[in-house]
């Protein structure tokens, strides 16, 4: 346990130093993180305004709040391990990770936490500026804020573990970019990235809620926004807990199979 703690501390330091070294990359990356939800925010506000001010249960102000909260939820939950993993395998870096007495996922968790601790404050400031300049409307109640925190953390856990599982595809194929793109296709439409799920056709809503996508982004966003009742919020957190359990199990199984299939490449 103590060793693991030290590993986390060390990885925090490494990540901090790396991110500080590549400040320009950080800014470039954040432009993309902000711009995508911003574009949907603008498009949906335009549609809502031309529709007389609301679509379904969303008025223009709610659309603005939705995409700003979504931007923050996305920032907390996103990972980049799927883009990295094939490189690690191809270059043989995974062999080094395998020599260490701890599971390589810990280094990724620590790396992820640290980089978010750096980027989240900046993004929060941007979120406030956007909320003021686009006239977001948001009324918070205490139970929503209280339930939002576990909802968000569970969303992060599910997304991190599932994407880490998906990254293992690199053990079997070098065509991971095609697999990643299929995943992003589903993520775009089913997680609530392109539009709030509750205004989409019910077939899409049901699919999104059976699959894990809604629980990784849309659910915490709509929870904080006030589009979810207390009962369904509690139910949703229960569903998230189930998905987290499945995700933990998936990571273990796929990792075990993957390492068996792994043929070391590199020096």
């Amino acid at each position, binding site marked *: 346990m103590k060793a693991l703690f030290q590993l986390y501390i060390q990885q925090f330091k490494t990540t901090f130093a790396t991110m500080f070294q590549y400040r320009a990359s950080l800014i470039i990356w954040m432009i993309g993180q902000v711009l995508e939800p911003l574009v949907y925010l*603008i498009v949906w506000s335009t549609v809502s305004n031309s529709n007389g001010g609301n679509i379904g249960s969303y008025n223009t102000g709610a659309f603005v709040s939705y995409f700003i909260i979504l931007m923050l939820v996305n920032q907390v939950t996103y990972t980049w391990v799927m883009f990295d993993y094939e490189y690690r395998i191809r270059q043989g870096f995974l062999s080094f990770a395998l020599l260490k007495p701890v599971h390589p996922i810990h280094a990724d968790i620590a790396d992820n936490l640290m980089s978010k601790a750096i980027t989240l404050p900046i993004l929060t400031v941007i979120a406030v500026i956007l909320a003021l300049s686009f006239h977001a409307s948001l009324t918070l109640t205490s139970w929503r804020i209280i339930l939002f925190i576990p909802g968000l953390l569970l969303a992060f856990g599910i997304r991190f573990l599932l994407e880490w599982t998906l990254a293992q595809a690199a053990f079997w194929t070098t065509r991971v970019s095609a697999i990643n793109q299929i995943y992003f296709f589903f993520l775009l439409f089913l997680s609530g990235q392109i539009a709030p799920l509750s205004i989409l056709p019910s077939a899409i809503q049901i699919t999104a809620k059976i699959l894990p996508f809604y629980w990784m982004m849309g659910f915490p966003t709509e929870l904080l926004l006030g589009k979810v009742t207390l009962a369904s919020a509690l139910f949703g957190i229960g569903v998230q807990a189930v998905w987290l359990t499945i995700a933990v199990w998936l990571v273990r199984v796929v990792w075990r199979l993957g390492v068996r299939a792994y043929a070391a490449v590199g020096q």
Partner: protein
Amino acid sequence: MNYFRLLRVFFRVNVAGELAYRINFFINLFQSVLGLGMSLAGFAIIFSFTTTLGGWRPEEILALVGVYVMIGGIIRFAIQPGMEQLIQSVRDGTFDFTLTKPEDAQLLAGISRIGIWEIINICLGFSLLVIALVRIGGRIGGLQAVEFLAMLLTGSVIIYSFFLILTTLAFWWVRVENILVIFQSMYDAGRWPVSLYPGWLRYGLTFVVPVAFATTIPVEALTNRLNWVTLLTAFVLAIALFIASRMFWKLGLKHYSGTSA
């Protein structure tokens, strides 16, 4: 004439290099179609709630998506790979070899690397554009068609010059490979008319990262939204940027000192 022969040779080398991995064609086809599907599904969702978007009709937005995919394909086919290669070669010093060749280095850098599979995106974007044009139909006059082609050309020149300026920074800062990523994330915003965006973003997408000149402005010309002032601005800007980027390139070359072993 020499230039065309070089172009043909480089093209053949690139094709030969890729044809060794034939399955790549199907993977790339699949990814391009999926990418187009993402754009079109988003388009369908938006227009299931409204009949116009900021004054633009569905078929006009469809034409914009077509131009967005097509120009995006052209950029990743003809412009970006060469620039990435150039940044790489400045860093590892192989740019020395380019300089020793008797042709102009800017020209060689531009044509030596091509993103072959982007031809798929260019074709998909073009097909989508044709479908949109048929739907818009009789409302396009001869003048609009000419303006559209002229704006596509000036847009491409502006984007090329912009890329060249960014790439030339490699002569001073060496590690600039991420700088081209700025364009990619900004380009995605070009899928929608920039007139939707608030002023600061619209100006940013027009004059800081000139996405609008490659996507919105050509389609504005097509749908008769363009005034003469914008048209002239685009022409003047294209010529000015082209000359400026060339001068900047020459300045960069003077600054270059080989870094190879």
